[in-house]
């Protein structure tokens, strides 16, 4: 067993602290102006901000559900079902697509949505975000980590394909689903180009497009709004970190309930 110098752990912790320290700047307006005065002004936030908040939540949930539906089966198929040469080509395609700036296809996507009568409709934005190459890669990688002997053992005990899927595959994949979901929610929360182009009415504002309209507005109000907008993401992040730190905790509870 190799022993490591004692200073390495405090050094790493200090680096982590320094790395996330700038995030504390989000609280500076509260320090400067006083918590109470800013909380009072937060009560007077415009209705349109809360409408944008709700629209963002709807968009994030819609995106997440459709992305699960599209990308999880793809990860399973590429890892366990399809021939390797096909899987390799699809995975290379996913890598290639990650090289493309999303804005490159905004205009043709706009024309396509217009043809499909989905322009100025949240469904159009959700549809255009359904396929996420990085999610396919994450779910494929997660599927690759599941050893086939688990399925073989279950089949020897008489498990059906459906039971293998719901009792083994999904629980074993859940850390990767959680990580992918965190990235998906963060991406949806931050989505700017598509809502800015496809949703052009004021009632369809999401937080990112709302903040774009607030350039030059009262900085203290923007500071409160920025802090409020990050809360759900921080909660999801904290939940994901707590679960991912011990992924077996997610799996074991499901495995314990495995009965045939």
């Amino acid at each position, binding site marked *: 067993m190799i022993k490591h110098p004692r200073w390495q752990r405090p050094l*790493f912790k200090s*680096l*982590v602290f320094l*790395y996330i320290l*700038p*995030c504390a*700047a*989000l609280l*500076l307006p509260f320090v400067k102006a006083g918590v109470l005065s800013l909380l009072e002004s937060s009560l007077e936030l415009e209705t349109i901000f809360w409408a944008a908040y709700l629209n963002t939540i709807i968009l994030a949930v819609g995106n997440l559900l459709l992305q699960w*539906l599209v990308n999880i089966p*793809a990860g*399973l*198929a*590429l890892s*366990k*079902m*399809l021939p*390797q040469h096909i*899987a*390799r080509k699809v995975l*290379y395609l996913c890598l*290639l697509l*990650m*090289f493309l*700036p999303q*804005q*490159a*296809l905004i*205009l*043709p*996507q706009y*024309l396509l949505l217009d043809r499909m009568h989905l322009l100025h409709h949240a469904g159009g934005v959700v*549809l*255009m*975000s*359904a*396929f996420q190459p990085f999610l*396919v890669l994450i779910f494929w*990688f997660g599927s*690759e980590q599941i050893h*086939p002997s688990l*399925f073989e053992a279950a089949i020897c005990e008489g498990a059906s*394909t459906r039971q293998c899927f719901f009792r083994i595959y999904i629980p074993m994949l859940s850390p990767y689903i959680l990580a992918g979901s965190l*990235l998906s929610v963060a991406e949806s*929360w*931050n989505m*700017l*180009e598509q809502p800015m182009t496809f949703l052009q009415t004021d009632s369809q504002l999401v*937080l*990112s497009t709302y*903040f*774009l309209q607030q350039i030059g507005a009262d*900085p203290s109000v923007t*500071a409160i709004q*920025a802090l409020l*907008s*990050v809360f759900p993401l921080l909660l*999801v992040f904290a939940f994901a*970190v707590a679960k991912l*730190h011990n992924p077996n905790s997610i799996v074991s509870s499901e495995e314990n309930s495995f009965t045939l």
Partner: protein
Amino acid sequence: MNFFVKSGSLSRQRHIIGWLLLVPMLLAFMVNYLLPFVIAFIRSFYHGMGNTFVGMENHIELLQNHTFLLAIRNLLILWAFVLPLNLCIAFLLALLCHRIHGGRSSALFFLPAVLPAVCVVEIVSQLFGTSQIDGLFSLLPADWSTGQVAGMVFGCLVLWKGLGYSLLILIVALGSIPEEYLEAAALEGASYWRIVFSIRLPLTAPSLGICAILAVYNSFRCFREALLLGGAHPTESLYSLQHFLQNNFSNMNFARLEAASVFLIVIPLLLLVFFSAFWKLPVWKRKEGGRS
């Protein structure tokens, strides 16, 4: 009948089920990427949104456009700054984290990646100040967002936001190196850094490639921060490809936009095909037992 286990008699059915599972992704790929690309490709040979065929005129005009060349130059500078720093810092941090089993605290490096663009810009504003508010530090001039410094600040932002991805991937990659290799080298008298450069680095090279791709991907996503920092018409050092595309869309300069779309898709495609000939990703080689 179970499709989770390879069996000669069921391989045809497995493939059919596999294709069926892939259908939603293929449909979404068609709607999100393929059809829009075909539309962009065809329209790039026409004048505006009309039906006058102009051949390569739009593409030639695009390559002579000052703002497009500026955006490409800025992108290359950004990559030249972010990619090496991202990979080096992430690798060193991953080495440290791997040695001490950093665990949960290493996940905190990922926090900036999930912060909304407005929060990131708010942090920059609170730290360095803007025309409206005084910053905590007076390191930068008051009009920094309209000067060359803006590009540097943006580069640091992209690095800060993207480092977490690389770090997490490299921690996993370092953890997957068999201990026997390292112990054998140590028994032969190899120093720590000799082991790092001769064993750890070569074995994590494919993961470094993935990290580089993610860094490129993140540099595109950080356009939102650039837009909030400098607006739709920022200073030259902040002007990005996304500004070019967004502004041409707003100005309804569709022909130039379509030509740019085709350019931005075809060039990475050719580069990837070229590099994939030399760089084989071992992760694609499926071992017996399903692990890669």
